[in-house]
């Protein structure tokens, strides 16, 4: 008997008492999967599809189309094909034999012709009055309950100590409580005790407590007082989700966007989590565009996150007077029409000179071998902004190059960087790095070191500032330089010495031309 299962009229909502079978969508002999819609049942309020509660094969339809049955009534008998038709027949017989004089078949036929149904009294529920009379030795099968004959016989006036629900169940399923051993305080009989006794005697008693609910409950209560973020409330409204059904995982106990989405996906399981399809109400237009991270973006993100969190950065800032530099530039550019040197180029040259003067800053940190690599020449990486990222082409041996050479090299590198034509050896390595945001008017900033380099210099804009020279306030074109140093390889004094040297070169540019 255990491999025969039954399908029953479900209880959809508190007030549902009975349902009308309007349409079977599978026929006898069909196999079905758990969750598959197998028949349509109409209640006074709605028509809904019954989802199969288990995998199985429908062997016999009991609730014919058009029949009206009470909640819990059996509408179909299922078993796999190994169970013979005879067995199925016997099973159905055992059902009807306990139903007294009203075979269900008649009932349903009668109902089918009657458009305005009244409540059918025909249910498989066994009432005590019917069972008290015959000394039936047949087991009682009721839904998935099967009470062995020797445990049958509910007695109204039993003085037995039992929980209220045990008494209710005993009455409903005609169990003789006197025959059940109570395990509770003072031998009180509980439903569990009845279940144990019934099963021990070879009967059936479903373990209702351990069956998950078929569908999650949907609230209809007023949710206006539920705390929620405005976005969450808007989304819930659009998706017709009651905020009572949402967890409140947001700040200050509020329902947030994720909570509403969680309910949405619970109700609309999809293979890949994407926002609702077009058939669903349009979700709120969100005021951002999701831009997927491409390879370069991911690399930048990873490298800089690692650099910023692993390297013990410290920062040194110095102001330099660029009037001499500007004068020299104007001079060169006006005298040599073939070249067009920028302030940045001149800084590159000055930095290169300073790096040679203070080589302790012209270093890389070789973490693996725990050593500092100090370079003979100044290979200066220059941060260049390109679409969706940045790249650092290297002006190699800048200390050895003439200003004009630096200028053309830099221009060439920047052009090719922006068109993605650099070869790896042109942007990998470098003994020092600079980043210039002066063209945007940035006064001063601190850059993140580009490992394995030991330092990076951030150049601000050229700006006329009031400065004091020989105790007189005067206007000078000034630039603020900020150097970020990796303290593992460069100490404060070393960095400061470098910046002092750089200031010297910038303010007396003839020194690096020499």
């Amino acid at each position, binding site marked *: 008997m255990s491999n025969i299962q039954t399908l029953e009229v479900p209880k959809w909502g508190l007030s549902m008492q009975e349902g009308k079978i309007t349409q079977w969508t599978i026929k006898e002999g069909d196999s079905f999967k758990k969750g598959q819609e197998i028949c349509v049942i109409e209640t006074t309020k709605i028509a809904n599809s019954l989802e199969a509660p288990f995998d199985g094969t429908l062997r016999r339809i009991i609730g014919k189309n058009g029949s009206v049955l009470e909640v819990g009534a059996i509408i179909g008998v299922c078993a796999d094909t190994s169970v013979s038709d005879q067995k199925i027949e016997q099973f159905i017989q055992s059902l009807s034999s306990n139903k007294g004089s009203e075979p269900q078949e008649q009932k349903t036929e009668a109902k089918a012709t009657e458009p305005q149904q009244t409540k059918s009294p025909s249910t498989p529920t066994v009432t005590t009055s019917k069972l008290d009379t015959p000394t039936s030795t047949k087991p009682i099968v009721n839904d998935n309950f099967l009470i062995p004959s020797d445990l049958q016989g509910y007695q109204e006036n039993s003085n037995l100590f039992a929980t209220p629900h045990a008494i209710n169940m005993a009455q409903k399923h005609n169990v003789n409580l006197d025959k059940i051993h109570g395990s509770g*305080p003072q031998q009180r009989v509980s439903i569990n005790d009845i279940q144990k006794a019934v099963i021990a005697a070879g009967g059936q008693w479903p373990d209702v407590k351990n069956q998950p609910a078929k569908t999650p409950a949907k609230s209809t*209560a007023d949710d206006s007082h539920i705390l929620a973020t405005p976005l969450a409330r808007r989304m819930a409204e659009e998706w017709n989700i009651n905020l009572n059904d949402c967890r409140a995982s947001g700040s200050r106990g509020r329902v947030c966007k994720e909570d509403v989405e969680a309910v949405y996906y619970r109700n609309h399981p999809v293979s890949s989590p994407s926002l609702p399809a077009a058939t669903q109400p349009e979700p709120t237009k969100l005021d951002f565009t999701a831009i997927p991270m491409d390879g370069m973006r991911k690399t930048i993100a990873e490298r800089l996150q690692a650099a910023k969190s692993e390297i013990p950065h410290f920062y040194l800032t110095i102001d330099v007077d660029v009037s001499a530099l500007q004068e020299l530039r104007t001079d060169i550019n006006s005298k040599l029409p073939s070249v067009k040197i920028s302030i940045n180029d001149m800084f590159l040259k000055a930095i290169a000179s300073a790096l040679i003067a203070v080589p302790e800053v012209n270093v890389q940190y070789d973490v693996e071998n725990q050593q500092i690599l100090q370079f003979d020449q100044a290979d200066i990486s220059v941060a260049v902004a390109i679409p969706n990222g940045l790249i650092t082409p290297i002006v190699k041996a800048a200390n050895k190059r003439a200003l004009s050479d630096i200028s053309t090299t830099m221009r060439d590198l920047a052009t090719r960087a922006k068109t993605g034509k650099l070869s790896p050896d042109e942007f990998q390595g470098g003994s020092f790095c600079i980043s210039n945001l002066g063209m945007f008017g940035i006064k001063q900033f601190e850059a993140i070191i580009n490992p394995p380099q030991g330092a990076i210099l951030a150049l601000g804009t050229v700006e006329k500032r009031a400065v004091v020279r020989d105790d007189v306030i005067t206007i000078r074109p000034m630039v603020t330089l900020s150097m970020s140093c990796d303290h593992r390889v460069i100490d404060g004094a070393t960095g400061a010495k470098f910046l002092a040297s750089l200031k010297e070169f910038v303010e007396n540019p003839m020194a690096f031309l020499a």
Partner: protein
Amino acid sequence: MSKKSYRNAIKEAIEFEMRRDPTVVVIGEDVRGGHGAKNTEENKLEGFGGVLGVTKGLWTEFGSERVIDTPITESAIIGMTAGAAATGLRPIADLMFMDFYGVCYDMLYNQAAKFRYMFGGKAKAPMVVRGMIGAGFSAAAQHSQSPYHIFASTPGLKVVVPSSPYDAKGLLTQSIRDDDPVVFCEHKLLYDITGEVPDDDYTIPFGVANYTRQGTDVTIIALSLMVHRANEVADKLANEGISVEVVDPRTISPLDEEGILESVASTGRVVIVDESAARCGFAHDVAALIAQKGFYSLKAPIELVTPPHTPVPFSNVLEQAWLPSAERIEIAVRKVLEV
């Protein structure tokens, strides 16, 4: 069977047991009241009879040897009770207000509750600690609390929280006859309620919940005063066709898990009403039980109705807002019913 007040039901249980068993004594501040006072001593008068008059009359029958007035020293009261219980008496200590557990808890939870275990089963401490719990009396923060959840978290103690005169008498009789230390929590707003109480002695077993209302749609679990508020809500909603089951566990250690879970299994919707605490209280313990052992019966999230996480205020307006009210219970019920 006749109508009796909760107060008289308690007194009757003590009286019956004192007559039945000469080892039963009552110990506490003012359990007679009047020792050492000229008027009461010379005229052999009963005094307070407990601060709210529960034990009034016992002294006349049993005398100072068994109705023992003590100084206001709770540690000595409970310690002496524990020592006496371990050596052959069945004392009933009156702590007056349960709030005072703070000044004597060592004697209860480090001594009496642990005797049996620490001494390998060779000792027992058959004692009862009676005391008042509950807000609603404008007694303010130190005389209005319901710390039964604290007692229930201590292994070795049994905790009784009766809601009706019938339960009070039957459970107190059981408490006195019980061989373990029992903390018996009386709600001060219940002393004057009346109900049918048998004239004879009877016991109610521990760990057996009482269903004060039977219903099919929702379960309210409540203790003590809160049972009455839950009943009120159940009766009101019955007019709307909502069928409410009210489960009164009556004792929270031991707890009738079965009685609670069976009700939850039948309704699938639960509201727990508890005056003890907003955090780590009785309601939270029961909610955890249901979440663990009755999860698949649930059709809606469990609702808890507790006081806020604040001390009990004095002002009547504030105190009424503090106590779980019938209105709040009703809102919670509607919420779990989704109607």
